[in-house]
Each structure stands twice: as structure tokens, then as C-alpha cells.
């Protein structure tokens, strides 16, 4: 096995493993970056009984695994994980260190970057090595998503970035893949100062509309209150929240607290599905920060399609019903 350098690192975030694929996506991207730099991609895996995750990361392309399998690291803890990851960075000196912009990644990475006095870009949507200068260019949305900023960390190392889930594609699972396994020494671990006392699956109080990752919006074109209620079913199936346009609120299909737009709330979910909304400016002002927009409308000339990544010309109720039926069948 080639035991060359390993200068591109990925933090192995295995929380919510089957939903959260971002670590696998970053291994794929990290491997591509590493090959441009003539080096290998490594994954840092901390925890207890992490063998299953290590195997998955190897099968998805990791060249090197830096692992600590230790009871003290059983539960995610920002201070403990910072202490370990930062000390390993100081031993191995990677050039690039990536993590998913997950709840934990967003807490952990700023802390590691600060300890190492290096730069960190947030929520990147593209990463590349600039061919002319060799700079590691981290592209991140700026000013509410209207602009993209290409960020570089010219001097300090490693160049750190958190990356939005779903941007890169994971490599296919290869059960015969091999990797180098390293158990670096553990530093003195700080004591845990934060204790999770209770943790329970929460359905009643979900992320509020403005924080939701998925938002389903209905407008006048949904047609009736009964049809509008199906939006809640769809939101439930996708773990999202329901928003409404002014006409839908005025019709009494949804409360004022769900109103989106100039006189209502602004949302910026990963996915927004907007159904039976024509795309009036008063409404679209509140959804401009959404990453992916799927619009369903009967009228192919509706302005909402100008904003949509995927536009579906069809009957709102028919599409809604079929979609719910199909999702129910798959769950």
C-alpha cells in the first residue's frame, strides 16, 4: 500500500448515520482534492464502538483512518473532540480539514479552528484547487445567497471548511477497499462540563418554520382547506414545516404565523416545495434564501417557475396526493 502523505482530512460525523451522508460525500470530494495535491484522504473518527463507521468510511474511499475508540469519547462533546482533533492536527499537520455543516460540525469546527488559530469558512457549496495559484478555494454563499464568496486561507494551516450536505456525491460502496489505520495518542482529556440530561424524539415541537430544513408552502391554487391539510401530511413525511401565502391565510387554510413573504416570515430551507402559488413578489421575497425550490403550478407561465430549480406543471391536488401516497409506500 502506498504510504504517502495524507494531507486532506475529513471529520467523521456519524450522528444520524443513515440520514446524514455528508461525511461520505466529503470523503469523495476530499479524495479528488487529495489526488490533485498528490496526497491521500484521511478520516478522523472519535467515539466508542466505531468499527462499523470505520468500515463504511473505508468502503467509501478513505485512504487513512485516524481513530480513537475510547469510552471517554462515547458521546459527542465539543470540548473533548476539539482537544483530540486539534492535538492530532498538530502531530500530522494536514493541509485541508473538512466537516459537514451539521449541527455538530458547526459547533466543533469553529472551536478547533480557533484553537489552531487558523481560518474556517462556513457552509461551503463548492471546493476546488485553483489551477493557476494552487489556492484551496472555498465557495460560500454571501449576502443572503445573492452572491458567492470565494474564500482562501493564505497562510495558516490547515485550511478548514464546513460543507453543506448534499453538495457532493459519495463514492459507491466498495467492500474490498483497504485503508491504513492509525491510532494516534490521545491528549489529556478535559472533563465534561455539559451533560445531556434527557433526549427524546420530538414530534410536537419541531424546528420552527424559520429554522426548518424542509418547507412546504401552499397558495390559492391548492384549492380547498381539505387539500391544504395534505400539505401538513407531506411536511410530516419529509420532516418539514408548512408555510402559506397571503391568499391561503386569508382563506383560513393556515394561521397568520405561517405566512411567508414581505409581511410574514422569511425562510431559507434546504428544500422548499411551493404548491399552487403564482409567485407574487410579496411572497417570493420570503423564500429567496431557499437552496432548492420545487414549484407545482397548473399555469406553465406562472412567475414562480422563474425561481424554481424544478418546475412541475400540473394539478396541485393530484400531484400532492400521488406524492404522499408514494412516500407512504416507501416508508
Amino acid at each position: 500500500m502506498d504510504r504517502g502523505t495524507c494531507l486532506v482530512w475529513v471529520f467523521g460525523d456519524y450522528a444520524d448515520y443513515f440520514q446524514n451522508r455528508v461525511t461520505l460525500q466529503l470523503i469523495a470530494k476530499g479524495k479528488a482534492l487529495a489526488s490533485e495535491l498528490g496526497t491521500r484522504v484521511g478520516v478522523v473518527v472519535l467515539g466508542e464502538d466505531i468499527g462499523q463507521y470505520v468500515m463504511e468510511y473505508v468502503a467509501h474511499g478513505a485512504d487513512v483512518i485516524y481513530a480513537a475508540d475510547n469510552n471517554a469519547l462515547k458521546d459527542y462533546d465539543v470540548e473533548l473532540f476539539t482537544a483530540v482533533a486539534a492535538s492530532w492536527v498538530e502531530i500530522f499537520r494536514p493541509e485541508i480539514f473538512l466537516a459537514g455543516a451539521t449541527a455538530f460540525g458547526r459547533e466543533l469546527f469553529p472551536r478547533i479552528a480557533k484553537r489552531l488559530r487558523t481560518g474556517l469558512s462556513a457552509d461551503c457549496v463548492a471546493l476546488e484547487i485553483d489551477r493557476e495559484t494552487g489556492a484551496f478555494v472555498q465557495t460560500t454563499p454571501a449576502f443572503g445567497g445573492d452572491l458567492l464568496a470565494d474564500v482562501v486561507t493564505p497562510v495558516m494551516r490547515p485550511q478548514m471548511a464546513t460543507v453543506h450536505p448534499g453538495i457532493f456525491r459519495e463514492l459507491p460502496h466498495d467492500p474490498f477497499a483497504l485503508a491504513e489505520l492509525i491510532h494516534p495518542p490521545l491528549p489529556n482529556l478535559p472533563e465534561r462540563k455539559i451533560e445531556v440530561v434527557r433526549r427524546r424524539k420530538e414530534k410536537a415541537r419541531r424546528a420552527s418554520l424559520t429554522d426548518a430544513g424542509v418547507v412546504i408552502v401552499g397558495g390559492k391554487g391548492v384549492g380547498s382547506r381539505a387539500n391544504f391539510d395534505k400539505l401538513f401530511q407531506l411536511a410530516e413525511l419529509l420532516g418539514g414545516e408548512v408555510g402559506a401565502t397571503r391568499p391561503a391565510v386569508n382563506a383560513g387554510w393556515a394561521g397568520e404565523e405561517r405566512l411567508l413573504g414581505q409581511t410574514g416570515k422569511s425562510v431559507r430551507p434546504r428544500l422548499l416545495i411551493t404548491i399552487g402559488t403564482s409567485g407574487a413578489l410579496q411572497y417570493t421575497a420570503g423564500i429567496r434564501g431557499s437552496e432548492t425550490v420545487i414549484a407545482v403550478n397548473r399555469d406553465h407561465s406562472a412567475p414562480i417557475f422563474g425561481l424554481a430549480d424544478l418546475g412541475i406543471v400540473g394539478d396541485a391536488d393530484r400531484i400532492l396526493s400521488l406524492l404522499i401516497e408514494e412516500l407512504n409506500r416507501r416508508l
Partner: protein
Amino acid sequence: MGPPQSEEALFEAIAAGADRGVLLTDPCFAGADTLATSHVLARAISRLEPLPSVVFCGNNTTDSDTGHVGPQVAEELGLPQVCGIFEVQPESLQTLLAKRVRDGYLETIRAACPVLFTVKGVSEPVLLPGLGSLQSAFSAGSIVRWGRNELDLTMDETGLTGSATRVWRLRAAPHRTKGEILTGQAHDLVKEILKRLEAMSLVEEEQIHG
């Protein structure tokens, strides 16, 4: 921390109940990334008397929206951090219980003071100060201004020179007009939607039967 006019936000905070405000302002603070920003904030907090038992931060700012500053202030001050809480109450003289929603779970967290919280999606409605309290906030004169000198910072530690990152270039985000618009049978259209949901890992891919 901000330009002199951000003092208005402190007047609003005092009108809403804060006892005093400290405005961190200096031309050399401009252009800071999160590393340099958190350095100035942490230095200022470490100069407060008495030292705070709890530091509350917002989740993110409206301009660059990284969510990094809270954790980085905590790191520099050596404080534990709990991010994204929507509720907090005292449990004992030394401990607090905070609630947050994370990855679909409602978590109750016990934290010992001193601690830093970032706050997101507070469930209680915010009590907006009335005009009267705003007026008395303006006349109270309880805001101090600290700059680089008051905080004993060197130029190298602040602003752009104290930052590890550089914005290399800004460019317009690609417009969304290139999205596909599909017509056809409802079944086929729903399949297209499902493909997108699969690509975003929101639903699992259809198992191949047989």
C-alpha cells in the same frame, strides 16, 4: 462590536432591560473574519467586572451568517458552549438547564457556570421596549465605548490583518432561471420530484424488486 451607529442596538437592549452596554468600535476592527471578531469580543468580555457567569450569543449575524463567533468566543475564554438553545432556566446556584432541538431530538442539557449559550428560535415572544423606555435609555448614558487601545490589542490581532481567511473574490450567484420545467403525466412528474428528494437524501432510493 460594530461601527459607531450600531450603538442604536445597545440603546434598544438597555430599553429592553439591559443595565449597561459596551460598544466595541474602532476603525481597525473592520474587515474581521470570525477569528479576529471572536478575539475582540472575548477580550472585551474578559475585561468586564464582574466576569459574567453566562454569555448569550445570537446564532448567527445577518451579514456573513457563519454561526462561528459564539463557539470561538467560548474557546478563547475557555468556556463550555451549548449552541442553539431556545429556553434556559436556573437549576441550582451553579447549574442551568437549557433546551434545544438537535437532529430531530429535544435535548435538555445541564451546564455548569460559567458557560456560553448561542440562542436560536426562542419560543417566547420578544418584549419590545416602549417609546418611554427607549427615551430613558437614551438619557441614561450607560453605554461605554472600547476600542483597540482600551482592549490592549495590537493592529495585527484585529480586522483584516488579524484574520486568517481572505475573500478572494465575490461573484453573482448563478440565477435560478435554468431550472427544468416539466409537463406530462402526474405519475411521471411525481417520479421526478422523488428523484430530487432522493438526491438530497430526504427519502431512500427505491429498492429494486426481483
